[in-house]
């Protein structure tokens, strides 16, 4: 992209020479400094999280302070359930709205929906949590997994809507024309030709949204709350990895703090694996952008 390294003009004054070297050097230094925090975070996660990182930690339930061998099986399952619930709500709505925007989205209402999706993407997650608290927790009079799922769904929605619209718009016009020419009505052309051709991109968007939601903590604080026991009931408080980390990191017990590190390492693994899938499927669908 950039032109070959240009020769410095001849007869350059020393301060322009110096200024050039200093500015380019500063840019290199910035790039080097940016690497430091990631390296430190990963290093500390591994150093403090790995000692407890053994099978029993993933299969046991939390134990009282001082009792060895506590785990976070309920938090892992809880995170999966909460994210699954969120996806169950957000995927059909998000994909439907995205397809609508791409295929029928003209006029003022479509512009409004597009703008709303952008706004939703910027809403702080804590505000979403407050809204879900008012919408679900207050009427039900208790914290519940459902409320957590609703909060996560709201956070997933804008990502799915916007990405779906983009990939559906990328489907060539000739596909639609061919389907129509074969006598398919418009809805079948969309449902059976356009959406399947865009499916790789849509799946990518869904995975991205789920990976982000899996790491969200703030909206769960006052919706799903947390739970120290095994619970699969959707109308009861439910444990999740982020809430587990938060509670255990704040606690004044060293044992719990260590477990918080291990949980953080696990969470990062989950998110990294998800985004790894994402990157692979991106490469396959777009030839690596």
């Amino acid at each position, binding site marked *: 992209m950039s032109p070959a390294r240009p020769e410095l003009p001849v007869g350059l004054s020393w301060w322009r020479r110096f200024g050039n070297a200093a500015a380019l050097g500063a840019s290199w230094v910035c790039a080097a400094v940016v690497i430091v925090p990631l390296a430190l975070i990963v290093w500390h996660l591994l150093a403090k999280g790995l000692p407890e990182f053994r099978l029993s930690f993933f299969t046991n339930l939390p134990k009282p302070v001082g009792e060895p061998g506590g785990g976070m099986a309920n938090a892992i399952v809880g995170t999966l359930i909460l994210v699954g619930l969120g996806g169950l709500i957000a995927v059909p709505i998000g994909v439907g709205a995205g397809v609508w925007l791409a295929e029928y989205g003209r006029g003022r209402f479509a512009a409004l929906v597009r703008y709303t999706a952008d706004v939703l993407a910027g809403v702080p997650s*804590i505000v979403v949590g407050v809204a879900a608290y008012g919408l679900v927790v207050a009427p039900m009079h208790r914290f519940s997994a459902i409320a957590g799922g609703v909060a996560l769904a709201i956070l997933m929605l804008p990502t799915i809507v916007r990405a779906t619209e983009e990939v559906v718009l990328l489907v060539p016009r000739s596909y639609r024309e061919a389907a*129509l020419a074969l006598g398919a009505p418009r809805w079948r052309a969309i449902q059976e030709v356009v959406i399947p051709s865009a499916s790789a991109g849509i799946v990518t968007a869904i995975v991205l949204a789920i990976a982000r939601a899996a790491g969200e903590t*703030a909206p769960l604080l006052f919706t799903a709350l947390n739970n120290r026991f095994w619970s699969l009931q959707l109308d009861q408080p439910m444990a999740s990895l982020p809430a587990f980390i938060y509670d255990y990191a704040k606690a004044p017990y060293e044992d719990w703090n260590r477990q918080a590190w291990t949980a953080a390492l696990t*969470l990062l693994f989950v998110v990294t694996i998800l985004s790894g899938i994402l990157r692979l499927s991106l490469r396959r669908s777009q030839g690596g952008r």
Partner: protein
Amino acid sequence: MRKEAFGPPSVSARKARASRIPWDAAYQNLLGAFALFVFVVAALIVYECARGASPAVLAYGWRFLVSSDWDPVAEHFGALPYLFGTAMSSGLALLLAVPLGLGTAVFLAELAPKGVGKVVSFVIEALASIPSIVYGIWGFFVLAPFLRTAIEPWLGSHLGFIPLFQGFPFGIGMLDAGIVLAIMILPTIVSLTRELLLATPRSLLEASLALGSTRSEAIAVVVDAARPGILGAVILALGRALGETMAVTMVIGNTNRISLSLFAPGATMSSVIANELTEATTALHQASLIEIALVLFLVTLLVNAAGRLLVLWATGGRRDVAGAA
């Protein structure tokens, strides 16, 4: 602007499809209902916050935003310490992240050899995908002790004549929150700015070099041309910093005092909601917290809208760049 996906059907085609048109309409309406739902969700968030906040709004009016008296026991609520904390921590984060982010973006867009550029891009992507709570636990257990034992005493003894660097080194506090936030918003600044620099016409760089500029002077011309968009990117990063919750809650110390010192603990709008909403016993306490959420929502809405408009305008309407934040 937007391409018509389908042309108008010919007369014979319209006749052939006449019997199936109800299905088409039903399908279109179903998808339209999903789209409407997106709008309804946003409206519900606004409605819920406004409804929940109304008791506090009625009780305090504008005083809520300028009073620094937050006392749940005596039922006095004023949000100023939290507004201040949010402004100060976000401002500090921008101060740290903007120069670093711009330097990195210039590096990625103009200087980086291919392999090195790939590594740095990967690091930026990885930083963006780390969950907020992981930043929090790192800032709490690693960065805070380091600041307390090494950085803050040094700053205090050498720059202690400035109010910013006075007071007891707690470790946990504004400085910790500012640094963690700066790391968290770096990816937004870097990736947007890089896209903006790459979207600037190459002829600017070439013309500048042809006129005898050094490489850095030519790059300065490119950066100058991308300035409005870069401002937008910085504003979008600010929007992210303002609403960030978990990492900040863990490292800021959560006291509702206003202190000019970077070493002192404080609280932000999001951290006070996270800490107190489930424990609020009185209706007024809860309403006050929800009013803070409402204010936070409105502020981020304005900030994000401004940032997105600037980036959209600078890229000639490329939603993919503006949406990347």
